[in-house]
């Protein structure tokens, strides 16, 4: 394989994007066929590149160290495989779910452009092309959200601004890093996080976790869950953005800066991770909409990854990265099953659904597997990666973070019990559209991606040795002390350790919590979280959260609006008054005087002319002297 091959993961989807955009809306299956074929080809390409592992493409560009440099190595090859896989599944799913969308041309164009940019960002080995690809994602993100409901534009702007802010921080960090190291080639950079480099680290970290959707940069995701198309949710926040954000975070902590175990920066990451886990899952628990509930989990789960990587302990990092790919699989599966429900019933409100397992067995099965996986039930993949993160948190020396992670596990399982119970099991709601018309299982292109993802969740759990040794563990090669083992597979599924015991206890607690809430709520599953919701102090906090008090974006908008109001009333209006009233009135008065002088009398005009002659003669006379 020549280095030029590295251009294909970028060029192929970009070309497909253009083609998909050019095909007229009326043409039905042709666009879908091309997209599906191209994404399948991308999977093949990604695996082929994964087999090659090491490839570099360097093209001098603008000088000053700015070059178009691409580098394929184990980590980026692994992310390429993941991106291509999700792209294929989403495309397959979209062939049915998005068909008939009035802006279908744009949809496929944005999706494949996203794939091209994401591949480019992953492969880039120079910060300039990296920033180009990374910022390009902002545009497609905006475009994809606007494809949703009419109200989606506001959310699109919100997502754009929040992500833009994070990206701005990242560029700032890159700038500092450049000044410190004097190079823009990513693979040549390796600095100790000291002095100004700490600022660079924090700035770039904001860029990475902002892309992944960690708190407090998450607030657009729950809004998008309602406003944007569900395929977008499964595509970007669930899969692509997690892979990209965590990829960048891992690169920062492993390669660019050497994050030390127990250092202050490690602590910062772990605090962000733990806070994200707990706060987001508490919000997820009380949600009354299926998609919104899932979106808060998409935020919460990022916390585990950040916590795992932040521990700076090999097992924690492996756990965090494994959790990244696991999460992408089951969260994608969960969003897709929510989309499947929405496709048949037209709603995702929990109280309007119920008992769908009988009529939509495959969707229900896929959902169940993915839900159990995200909750960390043995022997699914979520169990393996979470256990590793728990281990890592304990090894880092801060037990408190492990406790936070366990608290997160309790509420994660509780909220999925509630969701599953309300949507697929339990009695059918009277408000359910199912009561009106018979509901069937969704068509194959919708069900197959869900089932594939569910199967992968099982495989990655039961046969965890395979993905861990092929994909994850080699990433750490060269990053651990010589002689230290990086094989963590032996005790991955072991049930008889204290940590696994606590995890299982958490799940039991969650089950009890759900059962208690269900009974309290009059055996209505969607009310099962009400005891927590109504808990004395929590209740107030929840109310604030629902009113977006903690949403930095919304608060920022309020502050800016206030500032704009003050400026408008205090400065703009007075200036405007001068223009609007004083100047125009003076001008009109002046014009009025002049107009009055124009009486239309010939004698007057003649007198002016002669007066003018005298004046000019006098003037020239004076000037000549």
């Amino acid at each position, binding site marked *: 394989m020549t280095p030029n091959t590295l251009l294909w993961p970028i060029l192929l989807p970009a070309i497909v994007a253009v083609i998909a955009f050019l095909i007229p809306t009326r043409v039905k299956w042709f666009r879908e066929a091309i997209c599906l074929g191209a994404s399948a080809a991308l999977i093949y390409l990604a695996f082929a590149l994964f087999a090659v592992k090491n490839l570099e493409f360097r093209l001098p560009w603008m000088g000053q160290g700015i070059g178009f440099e691409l580098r394929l190595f184990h980590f980026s090859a692994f992310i390429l495989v993941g991106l291509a896989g999700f792209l294929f599944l989403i495309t397959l799913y979209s062939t049915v779910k998005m068909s008939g969308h009035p802006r279908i041309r744009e949809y496929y164009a944005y999706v494949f452009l996203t794939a091209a940019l994401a591949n480019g960002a992953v492969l880039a080995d120079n910060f300039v092309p990296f920033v180009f690809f990374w910022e390009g994602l902002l545009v497609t993100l905006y475009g994809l959200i606007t494809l949703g409901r009419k109200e989606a534009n506001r959310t699109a702007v919100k997502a754009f601004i929040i992500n833009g802010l994070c990206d701005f921080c990242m560029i700032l960090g890159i700038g500092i890093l450049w000044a410190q190291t004097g190079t823009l080639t990513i693979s040549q950079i390796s600095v100790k996080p000291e002095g100004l480099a700490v600022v660079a680290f924090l700035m770039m970290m904001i860029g990475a976790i902002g892309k992944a959707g960690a708190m407090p940069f998450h607030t657009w995701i729950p809004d998008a869950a309602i406003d944007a198309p569900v395929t977008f949710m499964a595509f970007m926040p669930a899969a692509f953005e997690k892979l990209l954000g965590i990829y960048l975070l891992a690169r920062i902590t492993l390669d660019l800066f050497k994050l030390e175990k127990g250092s202050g920066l490690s602590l910062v990451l772990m605090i962000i991770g733990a806070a994200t886990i707990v706060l987001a899952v508490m919000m997820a628990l009380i949600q009354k909409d299926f998609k919104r509930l899932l979106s808060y989990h998409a935020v919460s789960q990022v916390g585990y990854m950040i916590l795992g990587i932040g521990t700076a302990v090999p097992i924690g990092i492996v756990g965090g990265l494994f959790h990244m790919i696991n999460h992408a699989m089951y969260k994608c599966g969960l969003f897709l099953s929510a989309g499947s429900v929405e496709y048949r019933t037209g709603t995702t409100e929990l109280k309007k659904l119920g008992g769908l397992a009988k009529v939509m067995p495959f969707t229900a099965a896929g959902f169940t597997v993915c839900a159990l996986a995200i909750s960390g039930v043995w022997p699914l993949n979520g169990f393996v990666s979470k256990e590793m993160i728990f281990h890592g948190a304990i090894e880092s020396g801060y037990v408190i973070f492990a406790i936070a992670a366990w608290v997160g596990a309790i509420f994660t399982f509780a909220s999925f019990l509630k969701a599953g119970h309300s949507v697929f099991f339990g009695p059918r709601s009277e408000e359910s559209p199912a009561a009106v018309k018979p509901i069937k299982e969704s068509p194959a292109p919708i069900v197959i991606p869900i089932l594939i993802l569910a199967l992968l969740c099982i495989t990655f759990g039961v046969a965890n040795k395979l993905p861990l040794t092929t994909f994850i563990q080699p990433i750490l090669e060269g990053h651990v002390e010589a002689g230290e083992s990086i094989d963590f597979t032996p005790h991955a599924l072991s049930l008889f350790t204290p940590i696994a015991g606590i995890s299982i206890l958490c799940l039991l607690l969650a089950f009890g919590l759900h059962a208690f809430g269900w009974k309290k709520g009059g055996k209505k599953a969607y009310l099962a979280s009400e005891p927590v919701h109504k808990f004395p102090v929590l209740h107030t906090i929840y109310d604030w959260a629902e009113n977006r008090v903690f949403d930095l974006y919304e608060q920022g908008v309020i502050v800016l609006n206030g500032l704009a109001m003050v400026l408008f009333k205090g400065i703009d209006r007075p200036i405007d008054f001068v223009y609007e009233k004083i100047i125009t009135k003076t001008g009109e008065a002046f*014009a009025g005087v*002049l107009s009055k002088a124009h009486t239309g009398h010939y004698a007057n005009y*003649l007198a002016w002319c002669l007066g003018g002659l005298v004046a000019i003669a006098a003037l*020239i*006379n004076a*000037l*000549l002297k």
Partner: protein
Amino acid sequence: MIFLFIGLPLVVAAFMPLIGKVSKKVAPDVLANAVFLFLLVLAVTSGRQLIGQGPVLQSLSWLGEPLAIQIAVDGFSLFMLMAISLVTFCIGLYSINYMTHYGSKANFYALLLMMVAGMNGLVLVTDLFQLYIFLEVAAVASYALVAFGLEHDELEAAFKYLMLSVVASAAILIAIGLLFGLTGSLGFAAVGDALRGLDAKLAVGFCAALFIMGFGLKAALVPFHAWLPDAHPSAPAPISAVLSGLLIKVSGVYALARIFYNVFGLEAGGALSQALMILGAISIVVAAFLAIRQSDMKRMLAYSSISQVGYVVLGIGIGTPLGVAGGLLHLFNHALAKGLLFLNSGAIQQSTGTRNLDEMGGLAKRMPVTAATSLVGSLSIAGVPPLGGFWSKLLIIMALVQAGHGVLAVVAVLASVVTLWYYLIMQRKAFFGKLNEKWAAVKEAPFWMSAATVLLALLVIGSGIFFAAIIKSWIQPASESLAKGLQTALHGLGGF
């Protein structure tokens, strides 16, 4: 060959009434437009090569005997010839439709051709008295054209115009007589040479004052402007366009610049320069404010013409190469844009029967071509980039700053804001907003009228985009021949 610019329109004008007896519409249309097209092609294609080696002097001869009639082409004359032929060509096209119901077409074309002959002659002559003759030729034709509608207002306006113009002519004639008395000759170069040898500063200053009054009246500089807002709106729209776009510049600005630069030898910062700049600045400001109050569309345009001629005089009056170039470029841009706007007002008047802005409203919906082209013209005169007017005003303002006239530069900038103000009033009242129900059945102007306005609008846009090329190929030769003076070059040819 140069005589064709004068002779051809004059001869065709003479035959036109006779042709009108035979064919009322078609033949006059075709013939007049053919003449305009021919003159345009002649000015654009042949003129440049003709003066490639410097100014060209030709004497008229009769049966082999040379007559004392000499005409000359230099960069400035050629630039004016080009501007005249360009605008009259568009106006000729416009008149095909517009003049159909407006009296005798043949007579109209005859008068128009006579005016063109007068203007062309004016920019080609080489002595003061010939200049006076052609000034009168163009003026007499314009009196008749202002009165062409033969209604009460038109006759009154024409009479007022005539009476004030006569005063101007008298002042010019007195000045010419004084100069003849002082120097004993009439040729530009000869008078200029003789004046340099004389110590008659105050006498020359008085002549200059008389010229300023006379040509200032023709150019409608404040305070000699009062006839224009009556005369220009009264004429048929294409004639308004010629009067405002060309005549006031040819018989006013051109003559003034020619005499002041090539006879008196205007120096930057000298008395004449200062007098012109003050006059220009007063015109700009006063007329701009007068325009704001107008509710008659054509009157507003007329006041705008006074204001814009002020810019031209201000630019030329600075006396520096940049100032002259800016003034001439503005002359050209204003000729195109104001011609366009008067044609638009004619289209509206023909479709709706009114010139009152308050009665209009929302016409853009019914007359999209007129609305769009009028917007282009308005924005150009108001100096909005990238249209032509922006560049010429920019050059004038830059020249003012360069020559150290900061105050006047500020005045020029502020006045252009006022210009934008009244043009926006005009656009809003006439074209934007809700359609007045009265005009629900109004139709867009007929083909030739629309074609002429579109052509002018494209020229306005083009003159903005290619302003650098226009400056290089037309303006620079013109301002050079002003700066050098005609005399040196003509002496080289062994002239008079």
